[in-house]
């Protein structure tokens, strides 16, 4: 399948030298750090699409956007990535991979780990959906304490999932030398993989902060902002 091949070959995380195709191990936590508007959600949606193409179910939890808006993220990114293919083929492929995605949205104030677990068990017990990976978009790290992250890590282990987060970093807060913002330090050790997105003018760069295999390239890579894939 042409679409799948291209997306794998241009996957930014694989190009950054993370160990295996799935990057995070079962029970692991990963995060994408960036300022507002650089493309955190887009990058994670692209990774989700990658998993869906490998028939790995992805649960997308959003604390910001409505289901329809999250769906549009997937639709647009997928169509941008697959635009070179025949339209009938794209539609068919899209219909197939949709079965591997479930969107759940919560209001920020209504979100809690027990609630998420309750919803998850609803889905799993009825054999509706069992996520391989979870994307948690919109959690405020400076406000939510370490406790919540520990609970989420437990949840990931319990259900053999990996969870990806978006971390919003503030422009007024200069990062430390290792790239991590101060407001993130209290939980940084809980994460297995950290990557950073940054923009310079119209260009978007991706850089690994934690979890790369030793000996991998340390330089930032240039991304195509429309697809968040490595620029061809």
């Amino acid at each position, binding site marked *: 399948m042409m679409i799948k091949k291209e997306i794998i070959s241009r996957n930014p995380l694989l190009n950054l030298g993370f160990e295996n195709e799935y990057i995070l191990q079962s029970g692991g936590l990963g995060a994408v750090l960036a300022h507002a508007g650089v493309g955190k959600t887009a990058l994670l949606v692209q990774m989700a699409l990658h998993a869906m193409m490998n028939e790995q179910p992805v649960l997308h939890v959003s604390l910001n956007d409505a*289901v329809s808006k999250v769906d549009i993220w997937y639709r647009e990114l997928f169509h941008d990535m697959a635009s070179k293919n025949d339209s009938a083929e794209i539609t068919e492929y899209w219909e197939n991979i949709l079965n591997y995605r479930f969107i759940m949205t919560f209001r920020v104030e209504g979100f809690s780990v027990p609630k998420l677990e309750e919803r998850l068990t609803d889905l799993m017990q*009825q054999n509706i959906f069992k996520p391989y990976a979870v994307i948690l978009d919109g959690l405020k790290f400076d406000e939510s304490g370490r406790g919540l992250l520990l609970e989420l890590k437990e949840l990931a282990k319990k259900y053999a999932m990996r969870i990806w987060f978006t971390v919003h970093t503030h422009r007024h807060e200069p990062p430390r030398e290792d790239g991590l913002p101060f407001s993130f330090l209290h939980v940084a050790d809980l994460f297995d993989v950290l990557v950073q997105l940054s923009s310079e003018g119209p260009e978007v760069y991706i850089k690994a902060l934690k979890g790369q295999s030793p000996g991998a390239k340390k330089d930032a890579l240039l991304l195509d902002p429309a697809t968040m894939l490595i620029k061809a």
Partner: protein
Amino acid sequence: MKFDDQKIRNIGISAHIDSGKTTLSERILYYTKRIHAIHDVKGKDGVGATMDSMDLEKERGITIASAATYCEWKNHEINIIDTPGHVDFTIEVERSLRVLDGAILVLCSVGGVQSQSITVDQQMKRYKVPCIAFINKCDRSGANPFRVIEQLRTKLGHNAVAMQIPIGLETSLEGVVDLAAMKALYFDGDSGEDIRVEDIPPELLAEAAAKREELIDRASLFSDELTEAILEEKEITPELLYAAVRKGTLKREITPVYMGSAYKNKGVQPLLDGVTYLLPAPSEVENVALDMNHNEEPVVLTSDPEKPIIALAFKLEDGQYGQLTYIRVYEGTVEKGSTIVNVRNGKKVKVGRVVRMHADQMEDVDSLKAGYIGALFGIECSSGDTFVSPGLNMTMTSMYVPKPVISLAIVPKDNKAQMAMSKALNRFSKEDPTFKSHVDHETNETIIEGMGELHLDIYVERMKREYNAEVTTGNPRVAYRETITQRADFNYTHKKQTGGSGQFGRIAGYIEPISDAEFVFENKIFGGAIPTQYIPACEKGFKQSMAKGPKLEFPITGVKVVINDGAFHAVDSSDMAFQAAARGAFKEAYLRAKPVVHEPIMKVVVETPTEFQGSVMGLLNQRRGMIIGSQDEGVMCVIEAQVPLGEMFGFSTILRSSTQGKAQFTMEFALYRQVPQSIAEKIALEVAQNKKTAA
């Protein structure tokens, strides 16, 4: 001299079912003195609300056909179209929005932005209708208008801003504070007709000041004068504020929000003020017609009553005096006795009676000027037709009409019913482009088709009530389709020699799947293997084959036919022979092109209390539903799924019983998708059985 249409408003009232729009319309008519008593929606007093003029509507408490009505408020003429709230009648809503200049979006202060509000909002966006919102039912327990404003922002993406705050809520709702004038408004008298203006109660002063600040802040983006006044700390008058909000509203960049309780007679008159202050006059809205003489080039209409006539028939009704045609005049003036031309068929008609409607009562007028909505008598036409002055050849843009997804066989009880039924069907299909009917020649049954179970139910009921046509109905049938998945070649010879002149035709080529059209025919024959005169016959033969698949007899879509070779006989070839050859060729190739069955998939949105979320998802899953996602809304939760229509029969009963009646759902057509193998086998079995019974 240019006609001043600044005092005309053509508005619609759109909302979710049960958010109280018919009650609101009723109050508007009362306060504008069009009616002299208030009736309830469900007709407890045996009369029913004025806008719900069909018996059936009164009984079910829903509005089916959009009744147009006209009223006056503070020197403004307001035409109101009451639109149905149920998704099954969406074509009615869309048709109404097409002729409107502005709308009131009614929301329930408890239920907030519900799935139907989202659909209606999308339609308003499509037709670029500016709107103001009215948060109704503020007297209900659990009312929270500010939560609804927040939902307008987050769920619908509106830049919603409160024009008022409530004085008290739930049972203690007393009135509203007008944030532009900074005055408290109370509604006295038996029916709230006397407005008492007072100072804002001290306990609300701080909140009112804060909300006014927010209003000014949001409105200032649209007016330099207002920004200047803010910077220079001048007094901000209500006029200045309204002018700024109006600019934003017309661009659909701000949504002013009014609130109250129509049922308790609170807050309706300020909303009417809002309609006159904030919604556009006909000439402020850009309407476009297509010039048929110039390749359908769009022409912007000017709303000038002196120009030649351009008017759109947007609704038909069968009244006791014959067909009543609701029209909106875009340009020119439609006068009694003037001649107009129906662009669709070129027929000239003379305008007889011209009336203005007030639900099911009418008043005669001499003319309808550009910008007006009214009705004509005795004009034979279909809904959606354009009327123009002789010599013009323009058409209003055609509306998108979805194809029916469900069908039902109906059998009249006796001969009398048969006559009445055909009369009713003729009328309904003229009125509603999504409703179709035909006779199945094999089973001799009359088949009606529409957009959902309820859609067809209502028409069957109307047949009984309005036309006295007693019919029995069969089980609803899903509109399956067939298509092919791979290319297949054909080389077919049709040859018959049965005395006299024979029949001969050979066609060769291939069929292949296409995704963006239903049927494409391409002729690649060079050198006259089939003479040009027979090519249309070939195309016709292939097209005929598309009507019924050779396997399951569903209509076929998405096929491209290419012919590249053939043969003919100087004496025996004919149109008939090549049509037959094409049908044979299609049949030959079709089964080798791996045909599959497609079924209509509906977008189903269920709103349920969170405690039933799990079981609702289970219900959808059991019905082969693909759940797109779930949205947590505090106590309620919205689940969106794509479910095959064939699995949705009886869903409302099951949903009700599994959620103690607390969940509700809406459904609309989304797409066609391939049926899984196991289901396809089941369908094939059913088709075979149906054939047996028919035989």
